[in-house]
């Protein structure tokens, strides 16, 4: 295997990690259109969720 092979494999591995990370972080979401979804607000991560009114 040449260095270019490792480079391509490394790049693909990085993309897979990013894709898996995205899928895990957004699990429970539908991955579908938020526009028109009555529960779009419920999909946001609690960390990013606005604290809401006092």
């Amino acid at each position, binding site marked *: 295997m040449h260095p270019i092979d490792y480079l391509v494999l490394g790049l693909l591995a990085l993309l*897979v990690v990013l*894709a898996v990370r995205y899928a895990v972080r957004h699990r429970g*979401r*539908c*991955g*579908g259109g938020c*526009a028109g979804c*009555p529960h779009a607000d419920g999909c946001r991560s609690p960390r990013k969720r606005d604290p809401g009114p006092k």
Partner: protein
Amino acid sequence: MIFALAGNQNCGKTTLFNQLTGSNQHVGNFPGVTVERKEGVVTRAGRGAIPRLWHRMRQEERHRAFHEAARDNALREARDAMREAHEDRRRLGEIRVVDLPGIYSLSPYTNEEIVTRDFLLDSHPDGIINIVDATNIERNLYLTLQLIELHIPMVVALNMMDEFRANGGTIKIKKLSEELGVPVVPISAVKNEGIDELIHAAAATAAARQLPARLDFCSGAVHRCIHAVAHLVEDHAERIGVPPRFAATKLVEGDAPMMERLALSENEKDMVEHSVTEMEQELGTDREAALADMRYCFIDDLVRTAVVKPGESREHVRSVRMDAVLTHKYFAIPIFLAIMLLIFWLTFGVIGSFLSDLLSTGIDAVTASVSSALGAYGLNPVVHSLVIDGVFAGVGSVLSFLPIIVVLFFFLSMLEDSGYMARVAFVMDKLLRKIGLSGRSFVPMLIGFGCSVPAIMATRTLSSERDRRMTILLTPFMSCSAKLPIYAMFTMAFFPSHRALVMICLYAGGMAVGVLCGLVLKNTAFHGKPVPFVMELPNYRMPSPKSVFLLLWDKAKDFLTRAFTVIFIATIVIWFLQTFDTRLNVVAAGGEASMLASFGRFLSPIFAPLGFTDWRASTALLTGFSAKEAVVSTLAVLTGTNTATLPAALAGIFTPAAAVAFLTFTLLYTPCVAAVAAVKRELGGGHAAAMAVCQSGLAWVVAFFVYRAALLFV
């Protein structure tokens, strides 16, 4: 500073929310579009000095509280006061708005009303912006009077003033404001008029804590009853932070949750009941009618003095004329079917297919270029195969269907934005009642044509638990957009001259099977009648380019996200399993010794009666559980083809009859894992598993009979 946006459905709340915050919120005309609240920060310039002044005032209060607590050695209180002061400083000048669901009253009969009331009572917003539709002012003011009773700083935003004035009507704003005891600001949310004045008025009202100047809209027996009850429950109401007048009104209406919340003693409950009974006897009517009558009497007097109504608006006259045809007793459904057929023909036969072919050509050209470049760099053949035969073939085969999805949803969003879909829900009510549901269930089912997951969650808008559960079980039969690439690829391969017809047969077939299942469920597990269906039909209007574009952008973004996450991962996994055997030796392309082939051969006998015995077909169906688009990408990877050559490869795996059976199975079998997870959240794991198994079994049976029937013709 936090404001709640409250108002009836279709009064323009979400349009105003978009204008205030710039958020991408969907504007719909039929019930169920907004259930939970949405928040945003006002981004308009000219928010003004008022919020800053308000925050400074709050900071001074906090600092005062801090020093008092510190003096009294109350460390926790001191820490809390300082933390809140820091928070206020961070939010200096920020105005937040919360878009609440559209409701007609504050009585807790529906989830929307409960969500709104709980927010207003428990979250204590700094102010309420009540959006009132000027073209339908009486009905909207009914909610306004109830909101005033909450005794929170409030501003009335009189919306659609452009339409009202254009039809020759006028409203005496000052008179209206004096009678209601709250500021009234005329606006047109869709034309972006009066919004800055509204923000200024709302901020000033909240900053000055200007409470409604008037709470009493009653007289006579109702007045005496409400005030008697208010005196009785005053201490209970203050204990739980609810205005006594509001609590009293709700008790007089017979509001059980409020009764429970106040925790009255039996003696107090009896006294309340006695007051109410006296009122009913004096007026000769029941309590709810008495209160409604009281409010509408006030509203009628107010409208008579403050509003000069126009003649029937042009929009309304036009809508009535169109409804005479589009909601006709006999023509409504044929017209709807004709419109859908036209949309499908334009999508799959003309515009969508042309754009899709164009994109396929582009993707294939890019794939060829990358393949040449990687070859020129001397890439290892296995790595080269991973990139080209795996990633590019798999993801590319799915990406080419993006134009079809966008075009389809372009037409559907035009129908929705114009107001026609509200009529369809009304027309479908009669048909849905035959299977034990109401027209309200049509909304989640319609969303299911996009994606089953939001459709399943949208069933929360159904007030009847029976209707909700039944709708959840039937929604997966509404073929979701993820299956479109499968249908499009197979119709291209086997029925190129009849694409639109095959598509509409598939969609209609899914709905027909859903109807049959509904009939079975109605007579077995879901006895009972559906709830009454009351819905507002707004005027027809020209679709808003912004709303349509926002919907299309969201749809495209979601599709691309799935393609580059779930499909990408699934493609690599499939490529790996079909390239290596169990000892991790590379096998020949399309080899029968791969791990995937071994597993696929184990599954394929199950599908032999359906006409497709090739292990690649059964493996593709299995990957469809992760995402339905993965069926196409898996077939592309397993046949070693790309978008252009996959149709020819499919002809080597399926006969036309087997292709029909495959499409039928795909139409009906278990939805993707995300949809099953959504069902699990709503109904529990047992129901979700049973649904997945039963749907797959049903799909097998129907596909079997379809295959046998297809053999007679092809």
